[in-house]
């Protein structure tokens, strides 16, 4: 099957998010969920986006296929295969969804239509003009690839008859069915126990291998990010505060927040970061993390740092501490470029 | 929500409310129709509702052809069947299928001669045999109730021993006892004649009614319509309309709308058009109204078995207090006639008695009877009266009037069965009711109301007892000569006016309305001049 083969690797990034800002207009005021975030993805890469609840990572994920609610105000650019999705016609964007760009939502328990059979929910995602029988065959095969026991039986069943892990597989199948170039997985392991979590990690890897798609994994689970991703971006309060390869980040976290996150992991001591994340409604003058930062400088309070590159060009940090020109020189904010893995 | 949005909401709602109200006031309140515009619309209507130019459509509040289980199949006002005798203009018995008669000297035998060359709708001939078959049927099914009249040969032909055929067109009825007033009892609903082949072994109709009338019943859908067609073989003046359809429309407002929209050309039957709607109809000069005396009278029944109306003075006070003329004018538009006589005006024995209306005298009598106290009483009103008559307004008016006599009236509206129950049990003080004249001979109604064991007397708890009356009634029963009887009836009427076993209010009037597109359509004492109805030239 053609869509199972690995696609050739290209240097041009598949997805390039530039200075994305998403503001929600609520009755209580404006909420800036994403504030000038930038991110790049290359073909065949698995990139993780980690952060706590409210960091803006899910919103960023939703904004790519245009699944944000109408109250969202979006600015910046999202280039997919060269085309800016934010200025694309609604209907053209819709055609990309499910075929080129797949989004696998959180919460498998409620993300499947309870009154529709599994088979139909998967075949719905297959847009190519196959017959019904063919589509069902494809669906069954997808489930088989994803290690679902008795795939053809599953097609006849309803969501309530499946376990959490099985439902996750169905969602993954739905995501993969359209042969996407980009698959966005939103919190794929949220709420699952360790055993199922590992299964899901294996699942995503399998999808990546078989489809050759680039995958953006959005998660708060550092363990998952480490075992799955090639490169990682860390988000805090709507901004990307650090980015780099997985190795670099986990071996040498540079941003105080990232190091704080690492320390809070079960294996590393479970030391929480003091303080609370800032309100997304108020405008901040300085660094958004400064109030909780043990290493803050004087200027952090009233000046916002840009993303500074480290010696290793791939590793970028949004902190004055790592400003290459020590002192007050402005470093040119560079885009986060993650190299392709060999 | 922001405040401005709330205000906008209210404004939007307000605008909608206003526009809806405007629309509905324009159309819903039924303002007087603008002559030109609506006339055009109505012409359109009569063209689009597929009106057969030959067929005239009328409407009645109830089904005038109840069907095979009914005693008569159709009401007499459809002119499908005819009786042996009918009522003349003066209320006296007049010939119909029986053209002449003779009573024997002892009053025990009555011989009738039939009209000749009369055919039933099914082709059978009217002769003595046919009549005898009908009489046999009366006996077989009596008493058979019907919404029009109860067919009871025991009441109409009491003590009928034998029916003898004299010749082809003559027969004799032989009775146990003298029957001087037989003719009055035989009128209309007591002597319906159908084809002898029209009944099954139980005495019920086996098919559509085959009478001798100017109209044949061609078809009928229960509770929807009855379709009449002129009978070519009629022995008298043939009906002027070829086809008449009588539809059933129970609601008076809908009937009025149907008239106004041209769907129907006229209405018929009791309560066809209530007085208030008649007034509205007359505003439109496309329509006309005709009235006739009615056999129905309206009464205020007092419970004579308990205080305060067991006192004749109290009853007198009420009767004198009520301004009957005002009632008739205000609520019934002046069509009926006020009366203080128990006997209905259509009876040939009716005598006019002056109505005493004296407010001061009434108050005096009441004060005496009540001992100067204020008494609480109730006035019960039957629900079937509310639609046909302005009984609600009438009850409230009485309430106001009687309060001046120190009577505190509570109005209770009861459904028909509960109403009768309350009357029979005497659980009321005053009741509004109507009574149709059962028999042109007043003996029946006097017995019912005035005899101490009279059926109405008992059923309405009138509690009236008068030895003089019982004696008079006994005497009348045995009086053969009509002149003698008349004197007795006069006295009975006088007693009823004086002692007021019940308080008569007025004699109703039959109200009929029709579109001027038809002519020859008039109200008669019972029914209309249906055979003379035709399209206006």
């Amino acid at each position, binding site marked *: 099957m053609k869509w199972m083969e690995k696609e050739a690797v290209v240097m041009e990034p598949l997805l390039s998010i530039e200075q994305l800002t998403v503001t929600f207009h609520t009755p209580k005021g404006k909420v800036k969920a994403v504030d000038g975030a930038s991110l790049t993805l290359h073909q065949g890469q698995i990139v993780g986006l980690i952060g706590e609840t409210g960091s803006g990572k899910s919103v960023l994920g939703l904004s790519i296929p245009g699944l944000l609610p109408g109250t969202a105000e979006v600015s910046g650019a999202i280039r997919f295969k060269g085309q800016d999705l934010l200025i694309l016609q609604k209907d053209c964007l819709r055609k990309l*969804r499910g075929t080129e760009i797949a989004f696998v939502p959180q919460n498998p328990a409620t993300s499947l239509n309870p009154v529709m059979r599994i088979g139909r929910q998967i075949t719905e995602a297959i847009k190519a003009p196959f017959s019904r029988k063919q589509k069902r065959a494809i669906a069954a095969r997808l489930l088989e690839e994803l290690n679902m026991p008795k795939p053809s039986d599953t097609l006849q069943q309803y969501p309530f008859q499946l376990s959490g892990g099985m439902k996750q597989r169905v969602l993954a199948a739905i995501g993969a069915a359209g042969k996407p170039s980009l698959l966005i997985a939103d919190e794929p392991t949220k709420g699952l126990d360790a055993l199922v979590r590992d299964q899901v990690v294996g699942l995503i890897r399998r999808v990546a291998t078989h489809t050759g798609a680039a995958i953006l994994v959005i998660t708060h689970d550092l363990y998952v990010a480490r075992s799955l991703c090639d490169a990682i971006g860390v988000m805090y309060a709507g901004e990307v505060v650090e980015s780099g390869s997985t190795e670099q980040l986990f071996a040498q976290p540079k941003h105080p927040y990232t190091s704080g996150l690492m320390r809070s992991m079960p294996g590393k001591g479970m030391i929480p970061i003091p303080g609370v994340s800032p309100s997304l409604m108020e405008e901040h003058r300085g660094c958004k993390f400064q109030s909780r930062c043990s290493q803050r400088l004087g200027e952090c309070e009233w000046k916002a740092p840009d993303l500074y590159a480290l010696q290793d060009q791939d590793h970028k940090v949004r902190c004055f501490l790592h400003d290459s020109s020590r002192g007050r020189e402005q470093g040119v904010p560079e885009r986060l470029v993650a190299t392709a893995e060999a | 929500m922001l405040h401005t949005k709330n205000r906008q909401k209210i404004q939007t709602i307000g605008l909608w409310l206003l526009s809806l109200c405007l629309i509905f006031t324009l159309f819903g309140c*039924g303002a007087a129709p603008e002559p030109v515009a609506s006339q055009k*619309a109505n012409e359109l209507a009569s063209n689009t509702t597929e009106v057969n130019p030959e067929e005239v459509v009328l409407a009645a509040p109830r089904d005038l052809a109840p069907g095979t289980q009914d005693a008569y199949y159709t009401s007499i006002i459809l002119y499908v069947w005819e009786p042996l005798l009918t009522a003349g203009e003066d209320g006296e018995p007049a010939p119909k299928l029986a053209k002449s008669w003779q009573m024997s000297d002892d009053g025990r035998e009555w011989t009738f001669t039939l009209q000749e060359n009369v055919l039933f709708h099914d082709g059978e001939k009217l002769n003595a045999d046919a009549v005898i078959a009908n009489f046999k049927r009366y006996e077989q099914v009596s008493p058979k109730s*019907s919404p029009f009249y109860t067919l009871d040969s025991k009441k109409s032909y009491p003590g009928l021993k034998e029916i003898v055929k004299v010749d082809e067109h003559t027969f004799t009825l032989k009775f146990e006892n003298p029957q001087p007033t037989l003719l009055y009892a035989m009128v209309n609903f007591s002597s319906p004649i159908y084809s002898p082949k029209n009944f099954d072994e139980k005495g019920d109709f086996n098919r559509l009614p085959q009478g001798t009338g100017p109209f044949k019943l061609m078809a009928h859908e229960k509770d929807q319509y009855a379709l009449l067609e002129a009978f070519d073989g009629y022995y008298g003046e043939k009906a002027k309309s070829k086809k008449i359809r009588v*539809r059933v429309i129970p609601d008076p407002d809908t009937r009025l709308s149907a008239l106004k929209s041209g769907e129907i050309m006229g209405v018929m039957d009791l309560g066809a058009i209530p007085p208030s709607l008649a007034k509205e109809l007359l505003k439109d000069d496309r329509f006309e109204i005709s009235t006739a005396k009615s056999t129905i009278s309206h009464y205020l029944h007092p419970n004579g078995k308990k205080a305060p109306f067991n006192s004749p003075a109290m009853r007198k006070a009420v009767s004198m207090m009520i301004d009957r003329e005002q009632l008739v004018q205000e609520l019934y538009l002046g069509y009926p006639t006020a009366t203080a006589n128990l006997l209905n005006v259509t009876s040939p024995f009716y005598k006019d008695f002056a109505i005493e209306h004296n407010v001061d005298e009434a108050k005096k009598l009441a004060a005496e009877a009540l001992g100067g106290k204020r008494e609480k009483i109730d006035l019960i009103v039957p629900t079937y009266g509310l639609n046909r008559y302005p009984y609600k307004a009438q009850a409230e008016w009485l309430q106001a009037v009687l309060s001046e006599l120190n009577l505190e009236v509570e109005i209770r509206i009861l459904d*028909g*069965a509960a109403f009768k129950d309350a009357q029979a049990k005497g659980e009321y003080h005053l009741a509004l009711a109507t009574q149709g004249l059962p028999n042109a001979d007043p003996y029946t109604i006097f017995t019912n109301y005035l005899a101490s064991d009279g059926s109405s007397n008992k059923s309405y708890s009138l509690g009236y007892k008068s030895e003089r009356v019982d004696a008079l009634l006994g005497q009348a029963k045995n009086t053969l000569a009509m002149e003698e009887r008349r004197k007795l009836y006069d006295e009975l009427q006088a007693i009823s006016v004086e002692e007021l076993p019940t308080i008569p209010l007025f004699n109703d009037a039959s109200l009929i309305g029709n579109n001027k597109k038809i002519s020859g359509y008039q109200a008669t004492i019972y029914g209309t001049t249906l055979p003379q109805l035709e399209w206006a030239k």
Partner: protein
Amino acid sequence: MLYVVRRLASTIPILIGISLLAFLLSVISPGDPAVEALSMSGISEPTEQEIEIKREELGLHESLPVQYGRWLVKAVQGDLGVSYMTKESVSGEIMRRLPVTLSISLLSVLFAVGLGVPFGMLMALKKNSWLDEAGRFLALTLVSIPGFWLAISLITLFSEKLGWLPTSGYGTWQHLVMPAMVLACGTCAILMRLTRAALMEALNQNYILTARAKGLREPSILSFHALRNSLIPLITVIGTYFGSILGGSVIVEVIFALPGIGMFAMDAIFRRDYPVIQGYVVFTGVVYVMFNLLVDLSYAWINPQVKLGVKLK
């Protein structure tokens, strides 16, 4: 299948219960059927003897349990007896009037669903717009309008002034339009609000996001995903509404001169015609129970969790 049989079997005690209740209510209310039967013409009052004879004829002199028992025995065999007043067969009369009531009811349901549900859907989709506001106001108006007033207004407008529709009677589809409108009014409003609420709730669910992520067109998402999930409350209302209007509607039948089941029952109640009252109660009981059953069965069809129970693999 067994489920259906069990449900049908359980209706028998229900029917006995309601007919018994109807019987008791009839006999304790003031009024005598014998008197009513004899005084239909309103001209003569029957004598006590005549009333007695009639009471015997109608079986009213027997004790109450015997009277009811007699009726029950015949009823279970399918014989609902004859009317005290007209001597016509009760079941025959109901059957004769059924087509009238059925046709109006069908048209009413069509109006209520055909107008209420789409409008409700529109309101849900254009949430908080002027259309939504107008719809909510309209629903409030419709549910507040008294039936008889609406009937008379419609007749005045469409028959008298415009001449488009006949005022009353039964025969063509034009005769059914206004009565059906009056009957459908209130339920149309209810369906509007209900559809709006149910659809809004369905559209808020996570699986709608999944459907959007698949790149499906909005109409498909609306019909296959959102609407299907909002059907259950709608079907409940529609099913029970249909079941109840099959018992007839007196106001509509009187004003529009439609010889339906409602007027039949009303007259019988006024005249204390016990066999008709009980026959009517049994008939409407059966109809209502059947519709409830159909509604419950439809739940199972719509929502598989109901049908199969929670069956883990």
